[in-house]
């Protein structure tokens, strides 16, 4: 059949009064949505190829371009939305699984926006971060139950190894392969600059990044890509990835087109092969198997590095987290349904998992009830968008948060969600050397550092406003939160009161 039922998703409006036919847009678009007609000496557009990544808009020197959603409408139907119809058209055309990039875009509530923070007044002075020390230093790792002293008063208790962060934020796991080496380098540089950590993701660690080891958490995922002794020794922490919020229950997927020379050698797989991580770790079929792997990793690194376990937020996340804590993990990472990804089947991304706000509240409560909350660290992930979300996450019980999409946006991502094509126009989610040049690691690292610094200041302002000058006193401090626009049950599960109470 020689035609497609899919109408273009976007239309490109070119203001001819402003367009100077300089061809910058044509040169930059990796989807070839713009082309130059030498006879007419003008630039034209092929709208069906446009993915709304804003590359041309950002670089156009005269702001002559505007991209809009194609207002082409289907007959109004509250049940069969345009997206639902298009998805069927695509599958009828190709017979494949629908793939998506980035996190769940569905409009169910964002609970962070329904949670409000306290400020101190009259009975308790707020603290001014400009004039008083404000401590955000965070330690992640297993903590002993109490301090014991020797006879002479010196310290007897051995404190297990900790990750030391200047503030409770880290860059989440984004594998080299799903993102470019320049992007990974930028994350490493910014982590070092701001004294936090970044996570390698399941793509292994490229040799040029070993020098950033002190600020690196290396990941051991189900595909075990790039895992060997030096890799385990390279980072300051190790993470076992059981699942991720964007696609609970299945493993990572990197199409062969994105597996170039460097990716293949870092992952230790042949060039051009699809890098498919299996759904479970094939040596972890139960909690006791997980315990075995945790201790195997600890033994290999001589108990010098904290071991974290990352799980997706699912229905019985509280029980799973409790089991993981008892299995010997030092840190538990919970990734909510809004978490991002380079490629995931659309149905799984949109329907599987639960929001991190609930998962976090449930895990914190359950670990407290079990009497083990203080002994492990809990890290929350899955759409932390700003410093307000971080404050709320800490108050709900997190020791730290991971940011993924926010970090990418800081580097230049415009959330066009076509990461799985490997044609990222911003040089982030691609391995094409023509495109990866576009991400200058120095500029990107500076942007990431700026983001972290800005959030650091905002965090201190909010914390000082609550009359707190050390982040330890905010952890799990649900008295500082109130809910708004939530049902009674939601308030109950989150463990917070209603605004006004």
């Amino acid at each position, binding site marked *: 059949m020689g035609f497609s039922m899919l109408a273009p998703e976007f239309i490109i409006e070119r203001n001819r*009064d*402003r367009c*100077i*036919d*300089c*061809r*910058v847009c044509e*040169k*930059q678009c990796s989807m070839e949505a713009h082309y130059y007609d030498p006879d007419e000496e003008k630039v034209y557009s092929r709208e069906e190829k446009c993915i709304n990544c804003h590359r041309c808009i*950002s*670089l156009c*020197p*005269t702001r002559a371009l505007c991209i809009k959603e194609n207002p082409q409408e289907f007959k109004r139907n509250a049940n069969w939305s345009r997206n639902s119809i298009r998805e069927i058209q695509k599958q009828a055309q190709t017979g494949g699984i629908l793939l998506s990039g980035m996190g769940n875009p569905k409009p169910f509530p964002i609970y962070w926006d329904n949670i409000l923070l306290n400020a101190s007044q009259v009975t308790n002075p707020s603290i001014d971060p400009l004039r008083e020390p404000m401590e955000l230093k965070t330690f992640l790792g297993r903590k002993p139950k109490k301090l014991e002293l020797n006879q002479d008063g010196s310290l007897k208790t051995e404190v297990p190894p900790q990750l030391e962060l200047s503030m409770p934020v880290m860059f989440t796991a984004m594998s080299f392969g799903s993102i470019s080496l320049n992007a990974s380098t930028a994350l490493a540089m910014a982590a070092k600059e701001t004294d936090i950590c970044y996570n390698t993701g399941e793509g292994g660690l490229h040799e040029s990044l070993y020098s950033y080891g002190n600020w690196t958490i290396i990941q051991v995922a189900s595909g075990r890509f790039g895992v060997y002794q030096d890799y385990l020794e390279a980072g300051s922490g190790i993470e076992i990835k059981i699942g991720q919020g964007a696609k609970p229950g299945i493993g990572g997927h990197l199409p062969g087109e994105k597996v170039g020379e460097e990716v293949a050698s870092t992952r230790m797989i042949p060039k051009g092969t699809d890098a498919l991580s299996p759904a479970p770790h094939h040596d972890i079929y139960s909690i006791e198997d997980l315990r075995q792997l945790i201790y195997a990793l600890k033994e290999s690194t001589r108990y010098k590095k904290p071991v974290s376990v990352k799980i997706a937020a699912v229905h019985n996340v509280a029980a799973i987290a409790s089991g993981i804590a008892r299995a010997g993990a030092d840190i538990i990472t919970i990734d909510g349904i809004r978490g991002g990804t380079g490629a995931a089947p659309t149905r799984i991304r949109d329907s599987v998992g639960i929001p991190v706000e609930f998962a976090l509240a449930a895990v914190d409560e359950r670990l407290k009830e079990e009497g083990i909350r203080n002994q492990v660290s809990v890290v929350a992930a899955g759409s932390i968008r700003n410093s307000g979300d971080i404050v709320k996450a800490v108050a709900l019980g997190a020791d730290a948060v991971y940011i993924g999409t926010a970090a990418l946006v800081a580097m230049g991502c415009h959330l066009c969600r076509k990461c799985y094509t490997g044609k990222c126009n911003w*040089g982030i989610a691609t391995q*094409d*050397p*023509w495109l990866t*040049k*576009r991400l*200058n690691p*120095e*500029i990107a690292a500076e942007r990431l550092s700026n983001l972290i610094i800005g959030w650091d200041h905002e965090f201190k302002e909010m914390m000082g406003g609550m009359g707190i000058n050390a982040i330890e006193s905010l952890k799990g401090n649900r008295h500082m939160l109130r809910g708004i626009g939530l049902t009674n049950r939601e308030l109950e599960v989150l463990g917070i009161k209603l605004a006004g109470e």
Partner: protein
Amino acid sequence: MTKKMKIELREEYCVGCGLCEVYCRVAHSQSRDIIKTFKKERWTVEPRVSLVIEKPLSFPLQCQHCEDAPCVKACITGAMYKNELELTLCDEDKCVGCFTCIMECPFGAIKIKENNPSLPLKCDFCFEADEPFCVLHCPNGALTLKEKIIKNVDESLNDSIAQVKTEEVDTDE
């Protein structure tokens, strides 16, 4: 401009957008307005920098203002000269259009002016501005300003260590 500056190219960051060419035109136009330049002065203003693309390689080709400039040495009338800030400039009144300079330039950075075929066209550092437009508008830091060090032609070509030792200072624009 008081310091001796030079444009440094980092090819690994050139994205091949061509904004250097676009803004080079604007810098040398009458109107200095980008839309007017392209709508009205398209045929009278040409860029002095050329974008070279051979994917994945791309870079802007422009005059390197060599310390030991062959074009200056070869110029039969002395129209090509080095000013006090060590920029290589062309005094058009003296030029006779022999194009020896074009043949001598090892980079091929000098072109013939299309609208005045007896004159050479090359980078003039935007009339000795503090920050040339190509550097100002490069979106990815491929072109940056650096304080100039003493280098001769061979070194510019090979990018090896300077024979005359000087300190290299990195200044951000």
